């Protein structure tokens, strides 16, 4: 029977591959571009022939540790995250290299060259070189899926964690992918205590380190993971290309478009670390010049150490950003001394993203900025980063950093003369659970005086609405215990705690002012406000709130407060009439812009 072909996004293909390979525990924290991997496992779990536990963990470290222990029992497991998530999971990840695993374990880490939706463009392959963990670099959605079953086998053969590193262009590409029947492994959980390994003290680590190094040498020689050669026709002797990931695919298409396919030896590296030393020697012997195309850091180039290499270290390939077909075209033209690509028109920036019309974060940020025009506003990772557009976000760093940064600002200011600006930290609900709680405890015990606004929209919104711990639902909408935010805040020692719907400008403003008085009072400390309103992308939120027809009357004075200070994308300036207008296609009729207008020109009417 012919296999079923389905149009799958790279992340869906990976999720499908995990089920087909008999993965039984899958844990992830959402983060672009990795999120749809676990979502695909959730959506396709019916296909699994054996029990399958799927969880949105509270953070990546936890996801990794859950998957790790499951592997100790002999079952196949996976932890999924984005590249910066691996920083959070770095501690258990690094030690796992020494200790190893039992049942096959994959860590899928999605990188974001560009970056498109991340705070940096770090390369997980380089992280793996430092952690001494083998890493695979697929060049298409279909190849990513095809790597999963053999990667589990490799993982089990050497009892080692294996990293699969797709990039945004793999994760968010779609391709016709062939589906297979999930395999049945019939494994019962069977953890064999072995303290010299699973609890290895320093005394046992030199031996474990020796094992690791021996394994890496053997893995580098594994026949299935050697660079694949597309032979040229000797028209360019002693010249070769080496590429991996999407850069390989981009190069293949480009060579064909330029009529250069099958003219020069082209090696696709499937496993950038550990690179086979024999391959490195062969390249040195056989070729004088080698163009190396890889994203994002020069990982292959470093290991290859080829005297005739042209790559990121030599400057022949840009060191930053994606290796798009255009970028590769330029590098190729330089390398082969071809006619340079036609001059590109200067890149024009498109529309910047903004908080959705009706987003309650907008009203929260607007009010914060209005109350404390001279405040300091540390914020965090999520949709609410876009509070930047309203001038109410001054720092964005990494998950949970805003609370500790707020505390750091306070300590630095107050030690001068005891005076300090109002510091208003904004953090989303999912981010608060992920890494905000220890930071809040620390801020309290260090006697910080600042306001923390928890923007609670009841979901992990930026990544498409994954469940959060206080909603009482787990992956796949399964009911679970709800862990409310308020008792956590109180238990962290916070004595000023209020909750408010930020749609209510007046009350939110009054609470912000109260909070400011509190932090400046003798007994003051950290004040927490929970700004609570469901995410407007959630149809249930839209359904539950009234929608009006919002219009702007002719008494508009063209002050642009609603279009710039409030920055609703449904509002724009009609430059010919110098008044603001409502884009009815985008307006959701929340009416939150009404109090913003100084002349009451924005009005709402019941929908007919």
């Amino acid at each position, binding site marked *: 029977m012919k296999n079923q072909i*389905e149009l799958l996004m790279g992340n869906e293909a990976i999720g499908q591959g995990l089920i087909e390979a008999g993965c039984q525990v899958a844990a992830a924290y959402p983060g672009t571009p990795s999120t749809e991997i676990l979502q695909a496992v959730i959506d396709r779990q019916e296909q699994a022939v054996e029990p399958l536990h799927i969880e949105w963990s509270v953070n990546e470290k936890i996801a990794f540790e859950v998957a790790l222990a499951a592997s100790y029992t002999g079952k196949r497991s996976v932890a999924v995250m984005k590249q910066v998530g691996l920083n959070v999971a770095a501690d258990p990840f690094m030690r796992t290299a020494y200790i190893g695993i039992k049942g096959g374990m994959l860590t899928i880490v999605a990188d974001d060259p560009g970056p498109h939706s991340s705070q940096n463009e770090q390369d997980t392959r380089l992280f793996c070189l430092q952690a001494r963990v083998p890493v695979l670099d697929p060049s298409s959605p279909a190849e990513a899926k095809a790597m999963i079953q053999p990667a589990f086998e490799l993982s089990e053969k050497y009892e080692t964690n294996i990293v699969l590193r797709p990039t945004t*262009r793999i994760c968010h590409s779609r391709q016709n992918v062939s589906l297979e029947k999930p395999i049945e492994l019939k494994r019962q959980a069977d953890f064999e205590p072995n303290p010299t390994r699973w609890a290895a003290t320093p005394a046992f680590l030199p031996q474990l380190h020796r094992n690791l190094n021996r394994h890496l040498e053997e893995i580098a020689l594994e026949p299935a993971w050697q660079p694949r050669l597309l032979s040229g026709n000797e028209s360019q002797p002693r010249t070769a290309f080496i590429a991996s990931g999407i850069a390989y695919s981009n190069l293949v298409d480009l060579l064909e478009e330029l009529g250069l396919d099958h003219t020069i030896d082209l090696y696709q590296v499937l496993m950038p670390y550990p690179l086979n030393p024999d391959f490195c020697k062969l390249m040195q012997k056989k070729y004088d010049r080698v163009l190396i195309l890889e994203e994002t850091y020069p990982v292959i180039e470093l290991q290859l150490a080829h005297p005739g290499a042209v790559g990121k270290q030599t400057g022949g390939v840009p060191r930053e950003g994606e290796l798009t077909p255009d970028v590769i075209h330029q590098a190729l033209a330089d390398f082969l001394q071809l006619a340079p690509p036609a001059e590109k028109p200067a890149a024009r920036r*498109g529309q910047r993203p903004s908080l959705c019309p009706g987003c309650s974060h907008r009203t929260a940020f607007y009010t914060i900025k209005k109350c404390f025009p001279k405040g300091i506003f540390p914020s965090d990772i999520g949709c609410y980063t876009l509070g930047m557009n309203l001038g109410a976000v001054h720092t964005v760093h990494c998950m949970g950093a805003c609370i500790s940064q707020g505390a750091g600002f306070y300590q630095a200011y107050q030690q001068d003369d005891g005076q300090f600006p109002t510091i208003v930290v904004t953090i989303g609900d999912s981010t608060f659970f992920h890494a905000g709680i220890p930071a809040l405890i620390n801020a309290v015990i260090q006697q910080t005086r600042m306001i923390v606004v928890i923007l609670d929209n009841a979901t992990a919104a930026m990544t498409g609405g994954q469940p959060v711990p206080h909603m009482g639902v787990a992956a796949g909408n399964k009911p679970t215990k709800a862990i409310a935010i308020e008792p956590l805040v109180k238990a962290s020692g916070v004595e000023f705690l209020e909750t408010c719907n930020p749609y209510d400008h007046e009350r939110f403003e009054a609470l912000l002012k109260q909070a400011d008085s509190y932090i400046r009072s003798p007994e003051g400390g950290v004040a927490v406000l929970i700004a609570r309103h469901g995410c407007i992308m959630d149809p249930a939120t839209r359904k539950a709130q009234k929608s009006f027809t919002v219009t702007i009357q002719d008494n508009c004075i063209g002050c642009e407060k609603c279009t710039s200070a409030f920055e609703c994308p449904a509002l724009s300036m009609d430059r010919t009439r110098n008044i603001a207008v409502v884009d009815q*296609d985008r307006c959701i009729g929340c009416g939150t812009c009404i109090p913003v207008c100084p002349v009451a020109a924005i009005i709402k009417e019941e929908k007919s």
Partner: protein
Amino acid sequence: MKQQIIVSGIGGQGVLFLTRVIAQVAVNTGIPVLTSETHGMAQRGGTVLSTIKVGNFASPLVRTGQADLGLLLWEANLPVHQSLLKADGKLLLNAENTGEGIRIDAAKIARDLGNAVLLNLVLLGLAVQKQVLFCGIEDCETAIKQLAPARFVEQNLAAFHKGLDSNK
């Protein structure tokens, strides 16, 4: 058969759905296909671009001057993405005003059908009518029926047909 297509718009306009419909047609017809999409932060109302490569390709990305067809859901993206089109590439836009390319006020047509987001399929209909896509009417209808949520299938097909019958 090889065709490189770009679909350009802003987050929330239905660029992803249109991309999937076109790619699904390829799958249904047994032609290899690759797409690339914009997800994440940019989806919050920012400029988004999908690329679709139908036929024997390795990568989903489109190089400057290589796209055979541009479907623009947001006219203001024209200066941002036009350079991806071939010199003789076809350009279809959702736009109120006259200007370059084949234009249609798809948003208005969609609004009249009850939802501005349907403009994506109005534009698809127009592309099929102008015979600038690799596929035909029935191919698109099948893919729309496959991918649209059941309760929106009729509305989606209606939008597609409005595009098919427009500008004649």
